[in-house]
């Protein structure tokens, strides 16, 4: 009978599956993904346990105190949190419009060859070590800011509190600018990829409905790639929050809070880099580690918000 011709698939033995590679592949990939979790857990555990002295001494005051005084053993993170957020926001305010704009041009309007060359250059920029950006800032950006940029801002917009006070060149503004230059390649590179992945149907449909080239790009292509563009912005933000070397070199490193962008300030990462090597005293060291924990939590909160934003926009349903 015909049924006899159909071989009955016997469940393969464990040995058989092992030889077939399934079990091995499972074990390897499982270990790989478990290691991510393991590293994260170990990181949090280390930060938590080693900062216990500072947590016990300062409690939640650590987050709102403005004093950072190793002599008096009084530590508060507020100036650093402020500096971290301010420089990151400043950086994104500059790099998001520039990066997304450049990505739209490169994917939608530029000739393919130009687009490829430009994206190669952008990827080169992303690979430049941050200490090189720091040097660039010290030798060119800061003198330019001090002699031209800051006096110009002061003369035109000096009525705002953001552009007042002495102009040293180093400070929040310099840090924000150098972070903008550093996050720009990430945003442009990933946004361009996302825009290029938009199916051609989308463009053709819009054009067929009588849209101009720009209308098709802005109303049909960009919303479709929204997820990728948002992703690039949050990756840029993560880099801006955690960047250490370049910021330390240009921000002035004073634990103060000032509305003026000309004022020197500090960030969490910069202060850890500056003070960790020679920190003496257990509470001082624990406070620096607690700063690390604060930065970690700050990034988690911001990443969580990013997830929520993405969820909210996907429900509206213009994109995939």
């Amino acid at each position, binding site marked *: 009978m015909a049924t006899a011709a159909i071989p009955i698939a016997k469940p393969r033995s464990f040995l058989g599956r092992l030889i077939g590679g399934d079990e091995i592949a499972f074990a390897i990939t499982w270990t790989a993904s478990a290691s991510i979790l393991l590293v994260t857990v170990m990181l949090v555990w280390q930060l938590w346990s080693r900062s216990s002295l500072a947590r016990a001494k300062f409690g939640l005051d650590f987050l709102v105190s403005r004093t950072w005084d190793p*002599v008096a053993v009084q530590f508060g993170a507020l100036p650093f949190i402020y500096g971290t957020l301010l420089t990151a926001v400043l950086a994104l305010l500059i790099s998001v419009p520039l990066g997304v704009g450049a990505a739209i041009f490169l994917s939608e309007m530029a000739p393919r060859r130009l687009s490829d060359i430009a994206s190669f250059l952008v990827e080169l920029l992303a690979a430049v070590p941050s200490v090189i950006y720091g040097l660039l800032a010290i030798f060119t950006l*800061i003198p330019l800011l*001090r002699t031209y940029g800051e006096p110009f801002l002061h003369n035109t917009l000096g009525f705002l509190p953001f552009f007042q006070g*002495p102009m040293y060149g180093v400070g929040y503004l310099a840090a924000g600018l150098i972070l903008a230059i550093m996050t720009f390649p990430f945003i442009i590179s990933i946004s361009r990829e996302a825009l290029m992945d938009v199916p051609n149907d989308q463009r053709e449909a819009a054009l067929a409905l009588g849209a101009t080239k720009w209308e098709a790009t802005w109303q049909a292509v960009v919303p479709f790639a929204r997820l990728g563009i948002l992703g690039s912005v949050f990756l840029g933000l993560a880099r801006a929050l955690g960047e250490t070397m370049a910021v330390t070199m240009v921000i002035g*490193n004073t634990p103060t809070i000032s509305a003026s962008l000309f004022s*020197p300030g500090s960030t969490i990462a910069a202060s850890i880099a500056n003070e960790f*090597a*020679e*920190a003496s005293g257990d509470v001082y060291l624990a406070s620096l580690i607690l700063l690390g924990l604060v930065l970690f939590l700050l990034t988690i909160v911001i990443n969580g918000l990013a997830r929520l934003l993405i969820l909210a926009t996907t429900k509206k349903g213009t994109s995939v």
Partner: protein
Amino acid sequence: MSRLGLRLCVGVASLTALTFGALAAQTITAAGATFPAIIYGKWFEQFRQKDPSVQINYQAIGSGGGIKQLTAGTVDFGASDKPMSDEEIAEVVKQRKFKPLHFPTVLGAVVPIYNIEGVTKELKFTGDALAGIFLGTVTKWNDKAIASANPGVKLPDQAITVVVRSDSSGTSFVFTDFLTKVNDAWKNKVGANAAPNWPVGLRAKGSEGVSGQVKQLPNSIGYVELTYAIQNNMGYGSVQNSATKFIKAELASVTAAAAGAAASMPEDFRVSITNAPGAAAYPISTFTWLLIPDKISDPTKKKAITEFLSWMLTTGQQSAAPLHYAPLPKQVIAKEQKAISLIK
């Protein structure tokens, strides 16, 4: 590809060399201060040539790190730019069952550097003027506190931009230790620390950061190690000492500060020599110390370390001046040679 190959070869070769070196020699590990790292490197190399059976590996991780490593027992001895506090010593005794002994090796000094438009003459600073500038109470270059010590120099009516170290540093400690001794306002408001809560100023990382900012910013002032200033051909000001003389930091005037302090030197060598007595003494000077355990159980290590100390105090001192470190004065060397016998 060939470059990669070359790198691999060099890597393997140096690894092999390291392994064989370690097998052949008694390896002693040490860690600590960065300021004397250059002369320590030179000394350990010279000593290895003299006695190939001893190899001392020194890691310049900073004074705080040196004390931490010694306390944790991961190094055979430490090094620091500031003496250990009583609590730090007690912690080592508790954890390691030995007491760290301080052995001064060379001297360092901190000098004020500045960049004032139109001023090329060397400036003189009183302790009060420096304290005022770094406290933010002296804000203009033509302030009486500065001008009265510099007759004949035309100082501009410009705001002073202060630049200090952002990283925790022995240099900052010595500088603030001096200001604490000479100025009560400084003592009450800031105090002596490797990472003080500076009342004013931009902060830059490392001596290179401070000197870079001072060079770039018009009408600014900062402070760096004397060794760093000499190596980079930088001009610097002189500072008034305890005998009210303005002294420019040079290797001789720094050694003079140690000689001035030698008379009142405690037996354990833990002494600050800022504002030291002596008409020729430069007031912002300091020792840098090796931190040696008073009990070394391994006899070959004990022999190697004590021999190194005796060598360092005699032949080794001759290497100091060519590398721009101030050598120890005779009185201190004599005291230290006696102290070597404390290592059991």
